């Protein structure tokens, strides 16, 4: 233990990498029956982590280079899989984000989950989630990253399916796990490709080697693409994006966590983690850019038609993740990470606010909430509006700055189509987010019954309590804190940029290329057009949903086919359903099962039956008639003679 005490940095990092796990173990093993104790343990663990993270951020803010600790986790022949901590600017930033969001969500959950029978379990899983995510963030090697990446998946599976008695919840959990697993296969193969082609899985050495072109380009491209599959799965990019909207089956705080700082952020984080490696392969970057763009646009269209409040935010998450991938893929390292940061804040805010509404009205349908008097809940309403503004990219909220950064990067791309797509995305973002806000703010009776949306409320564990009880405040405070962060975070853009890009010359190069074109006059044109598009989106939403005479139907109602396409997620789920039902179940499974029963087992049983049958046949040799037997014997002797003679 001595070496711990000597090195406070190490101690802090270790705290992040162990305490939540211990909290989970203790809760699951000992304190399942004691709800308060469980919450206290979990909260204190995450508080410690938060403090450690902040401490680390403060201490190592000006450190010249990354601080790295490693121990061999396993050693097999010449392969060493280390466990350790890589503390550099990016990981520290992310660590802090995760800790903050996780902390706030856990506080919020004190209110939201109060009275739930699975309260202790909930906190155990929350701890697991936090632990996995934080340890992943500070992983020094790809394998450790992969390991905790998987654990993040596990934790989100558990939390999404938290209301396991609800079929749809467990279904959503399963879907999330399997779909991300699909991407992870690629990730895993990508790691092996790196291992085979380069031999070292340390993140720093990978990045350096790729930048210095020490790795064969083919290997870089191949492994980047494979690793990007992991990002596709985890960050819900096209074509594996449909699990994320379903993932809101979990408790709302979980969605907040999942959509902001942990699960989906993991993908983008990993991409930025090995950004120099990615950047070394233009082909991979192009693919990533395309996929990010497609994702962003598809998700935006989906968000425009749904009435489920959480689903809107879920689609918006997907679309924002698309933005981040676009930014990273066009070389905008800072823009991507910055958007990740701001997004973490305002998306958590949005979800937590929605959570309050859902908690209050026991429904997910925004029209129901509106009719129920959602506007009367002032704090969440205001905060949600703040969040929506940030999402739409309105000055001076954090989303504005990060989105501008992304636009700047996209503008730097010689092919302007990406920029146009980005601007279109910004428009749609503003439209769908304010569609939601307006629908809650200005409820319409006549829309009643327009669409019988399945209620996802939590009637079975609802409870009546005053709006201003402790429960409410436990939820309100985190929301307000987040709203505050959202308001001010944008102004720290320069500081953050300085902080992040001070990291290394390698990153500078990439960034300079990406952001260079953003300055000057073009920059202001871009800025103006983006903001005006966002405002246009808001106005459009006002026109259709906000004003007194608005039908609150949306222009898409006029194109039922398109609306159906959007509402059905471009039939992607149908495709997967078909894939699972017909290819997996009816195809392979059925085939193999029949093969197993009929051919293999049938063959074995057939051999057995044949043996018994031939016994029956052979027994005819032993007839009851004495002389037949004698004939057999004599014939046998004769055959033996013949055998000898011949």
């Amino acid at each position, binding site marked *: 233990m001595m070496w711990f005490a000597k090195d406070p940095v190490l101690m802090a990092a270790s705290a992040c990498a162990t305490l939540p796990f211990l909290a989970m173990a203790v809760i699951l093993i000992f304190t399942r029956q004691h709800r308060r104790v469980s919450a206290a343990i979990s909260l204190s663990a995450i508080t410690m982590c938060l403090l450690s993270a902040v401490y680390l951020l403060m201490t190592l803010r000006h450190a010249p280079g990354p601080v790295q600790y490693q121990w061999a986790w396993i050693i097999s022949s010449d392969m060493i899989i280390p466990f350790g901590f890589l503390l550099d600017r990016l990981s520290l930033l992310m660590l802090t984000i995760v800790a903050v969001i996780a902390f706030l969500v856990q506080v919020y959950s004190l209110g939201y989950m109060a009275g739930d029978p699975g309260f202790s379990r909930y906190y155990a899983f929350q701890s697991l989630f936090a632990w996995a995510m934080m340890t992943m963030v500070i992983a020094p090697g790809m394998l450790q990253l992969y390991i905790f990446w998987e654990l993040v998946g596990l934790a989100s599976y558990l939390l999404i399916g938290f209301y396991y008695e609800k079929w749809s919840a467990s279904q959503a959990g399963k879907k999330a796990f399997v779909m991300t697993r699909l991407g992870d296969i690629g990730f895993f193969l990508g790691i092996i490709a790196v291992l085979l082609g380069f031999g070292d899985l340390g993140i720093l050495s990978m990045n350096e080697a790729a930048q210095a072109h020490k790795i064969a380009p083919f290997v870089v491209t191949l492994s980047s693409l494979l690793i990007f599959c992991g990002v596709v799965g985890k960050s819900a990019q096209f074509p594996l994006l449909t699990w994320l909207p379903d993932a809101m089956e979990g408790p709302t705080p979980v969605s907040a966590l999942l959509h902001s700082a942990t699960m989906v952020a993991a993908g983008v984080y990993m991409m930025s983690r090995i950004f120099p490696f990615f950047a070394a392969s233009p082909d991979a970057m192009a693919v990533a850019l395309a996929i990010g763009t497609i994702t962003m646009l598809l998700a935006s269209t989906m968000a425009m038609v749904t009435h489920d409040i959480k689903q809107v935010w879920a689609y918006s998450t997907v679309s924002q993740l698309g933005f981040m991938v676009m930014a990273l893929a066009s070389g905008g390292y800072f823009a991507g990470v910055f958007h990740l940061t701001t997004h973490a804040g305002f998306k958590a805010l949005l979800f937590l606010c929605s959570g309050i509404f859902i908690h209050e009205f026991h429904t997910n349908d925004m029209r129901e909430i509106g009719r129920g008097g959602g506007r009367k809940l002032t704090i969440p309403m205001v905060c949600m509006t703040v969040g929506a503004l940030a999402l739409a990219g309105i000055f001076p909220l954090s989303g504005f700055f990060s989105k501008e950064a992304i636009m700047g990067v996209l503008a730097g791309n010689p092919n302007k189509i990406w920029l146009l797509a980005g601007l279109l995305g910004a428009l749609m973002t503003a439209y769908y987010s304010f569609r939601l806000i307006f629908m809650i703010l200005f409820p319409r009776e006549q829309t009643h019954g327009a669409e019988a949306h399945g209620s996802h409320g939590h009637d079975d564990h609802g409870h009546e309590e005053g709006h201003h009880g402790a429960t409410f405040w436990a939820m309100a405070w985190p929301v307000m804190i987040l709203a505050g962060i959202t308001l001010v975070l944008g102004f720290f853009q320069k500081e953050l940029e300085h902080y992040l890009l001070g990291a290394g010359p390698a990153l500078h190069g990439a960034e300079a290329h990406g952001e260079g074109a953003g300055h000057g006059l073009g920059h202001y044109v871009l800025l103006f057009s983006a903001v005006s598009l966002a405002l246009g989106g808001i106005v459009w939403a006002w026109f259709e949903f906000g004003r007194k005479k608005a039908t609150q139907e949306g222009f898409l109602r006029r194109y039922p086919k398109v609306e159906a396409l959007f509402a059905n997620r471009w039939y992607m789920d149908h495709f997967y359903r078909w894939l699972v039902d017909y290819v997996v179940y009816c195809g392979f499974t059925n085939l193999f099962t029949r093969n197993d029963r009929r051919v293999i087992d049938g063959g074995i049983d057939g051999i057995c039956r044949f043996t018994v049958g031939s016994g029956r046949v052979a027994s005819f040799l032993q007839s009851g008639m004495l002389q037949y037997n*004698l004939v057999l*014997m004599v014939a046998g002797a004769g055959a033996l003679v013949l055998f000898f003679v011949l």
Partner: protein
Amino acid sequence: MMKWTLFTPELFYVAMAAVFFVGSLQRRVDSRRLYRWAVALAGVGLVVSVACTRLEGFLFFDSYKVDLFSQFFKVLIALGTFFVILVCSELHGIDPRKHAEFYFLLAVCTLAMMMLVSAVELLTIYIALELSSYSLYLMVPMRHRADRYVESGIKYFMVGATASAMMIFGLSYLFGMTHTTYVAEMVRVLPGLLHQPAAVVGLVLTLAGFFFKQALFPFHIWAPDVYQGAANQVTTYIATASKMAAAAMVIRFVGLTTGQSEALIQLLVVLSVLSMTFGNLVAIIQKDIKRLLAYSSIAHAGYMLIGILCMTQRGYASAVYYAMAYLIMNFACFMVVIKVADDGHNLQIKELAGLHKRSPLLAMTLMLALFGLAGIPPTLGFTGKFLVFAAALEKGYLLLVIIGMINATISLYYYLIVIKAAYLLEPVREYPPVRVDTWTRILSIVLVIAMIYVGIFPDRFVALSEAAVAVLP
């Protein structure tokens, strides 16, 4: 004459036969007393045989060879006889008036088989063989209230008589070709004569006689009917002691050929494969335990033949070990059968149902014995098979060994059916309780220990069988 001491065991059984002959002349003899006499005499006979193990020499103008090999088998035969007599306490399978005759025939048969083991001259072999056969011919139809089994006696007799006629005809040709009746000499010249059809016919027909005794396919045909039709104790005797003599004879006869004839080996390979396969296949569908064991004995003759056909010291030794193992395991099975069916009826497999409750000890003995027969360690049956297959592989008969092992797997199936009956099935109707007296209990425990001890610590017994075959030329 000192030389007569070599003949002590045989003389003893002559005396024993005489005693029971006198007994059979008595008008009314208590069967319990006869049983006690028989046990005592057979016990002494065993002791005498053991005591004479180390004798060596020739008798009767060199037509009778006493060596470790023969004495070892004599001990086994005496042991088998002793065992059989031990389980005769409830001799319901035979008319009480004929018990003395039964013991008399048993003694004569034992005597004949002992002679057979030592005989190295054709006429002696023939006479010993006939003597033992005739006693068995008479014992088989002795069954009390034989009903439908009455035909087994005539079947045995007819098949046996035909086989022995064929054998003597074959012997006549061998005699004609080699001009001698001494096996050792005959075998020396025989390989050179094998291109002549007459020699071949002679050899094959002679072997047919031996194989008949050993119940190898296709000379097995008497075995199922006789096993099923004879009284339980008689079947036990045929399956144990009589098998020993047959094995010894075949080993000695083949052992003399010293493996010069490729064709002979091939012939034996074919026979052994056929025996194993046929025996095991037909055994699968049997319902009567004794009949099942008959087929299993056919299969085991095939296994034993694998050891013999290697024509190496190790091969013979393994066959000797196998024979010993077979004696013990088979006897254990039959003992259980006799005890469970103590009124002397033929036991069906399903009648074993619930045996584990009716008599756990017998059930365990049966299970171990059957696993032994199937060649499952750590019983001696496994060690026997292992040795046999090892010997075969030393000669490179890989395929033969694989066939043998597949057969062992098939055999496991029907043994498992019996075990299943004993351990799993619930009796469909109330069966009479199994009476297990102290002697049976002791015998069972001894058998169980023997089966496991010899299986786990085979070293001494392997050494013994190797020493026994070392005297073969």
